[in-house]
């Protein structure tokens, strides 16, 4: 039987598609989504109890190992999920190649910048024990 498939044998073996990343974007979006189901429920409950609370109470909360670890995981999963989601929005609506590339780079920088800022502040609260 004649092979009518349009893909090259190498392309089929690699299975990565034209973007060279295969399904990793899709998969990581789902992986972080599943992680965020329990983490965001925990985060919402914690934020509702402690947003605007006294600074000492907030610091004491994040100084607890379990809370600090959960918050760290929440920040990483949320920032990664956010960067993947915003990337799709940029790809959907921005069609000018140069502008798109600039926004995609900016998106990654901004998301991980936010993550680094939140992570550093958390670290300071968790181990710095500010008076």
């Amino acid at each position, binding site marked *: 039987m004649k092979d009518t498939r349009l893909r090259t044998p190498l392309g089929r073996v690699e299975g990565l598609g034209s973007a060279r990343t295969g399904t990793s974007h899709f998969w990581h979006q789902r992986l972080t*989504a599943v992680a965020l189901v329990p983490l965001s*429920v925990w985060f*919402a409950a914690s934020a509702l109890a402690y947003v605007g*609370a006294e*600074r000492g109470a907030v610091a004491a909360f994040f100084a607890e190992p379990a809370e600090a670890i959960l918050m760290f995981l929440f920040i990483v999963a949320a920032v990664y999920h956010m960067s993947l989601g915003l990337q799709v929005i940029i790809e959907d609506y921005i069609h000018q190649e140069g502008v798109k590339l600039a926004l995609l780079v900016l998106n990654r920088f901004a998301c991980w910048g*936010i993550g680094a800022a939140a992570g550093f*502040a*958390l670290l300071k609260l968790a181990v710095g024990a500010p008076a």
Partner: protein
Amino acid sequence: MDANGQSPGPKTRSPGKPKARPVSPHIQIWRWTVTMAASITHRVTGMALAGGTLFLVWWLIAAASGPDAYAVFAGVAAHPIGEVILFGLLWALAFHLLNGIRHLAWDLGYGFTMSTSRLTAALVYAASLLIAASAFAVGMMVRGGLGL
């Protein structure tokens, strides 16, 4: 040969002469459906939550920085505008979370029929509002009970 004297078969595009092809109507043409609204709301709440991370960063950095920085944040959080932002983000999170679970169910192959899809979309709207309102009320009581 057909009636116009042309050969049947695939027509080729003549170069330099773009053909007026039919285009898909844009969103203002379509009748609104609850599934379409849920899809758009999912994206909009996702963007709102991305903006909300800036408030999270502000909260954590203010708490880590010192009493003066934290007082500014606490002032905004206690202000009615701060409460509105908190409720809005809470609802956005509840919606995005519940509709995200709907998406994960689809990924596993469940809930694809039109009737189920419409029902779950409506449920996500109702449940997210209910959860956000009750969680917000409990949050206010907890913070009030702690004398904050």
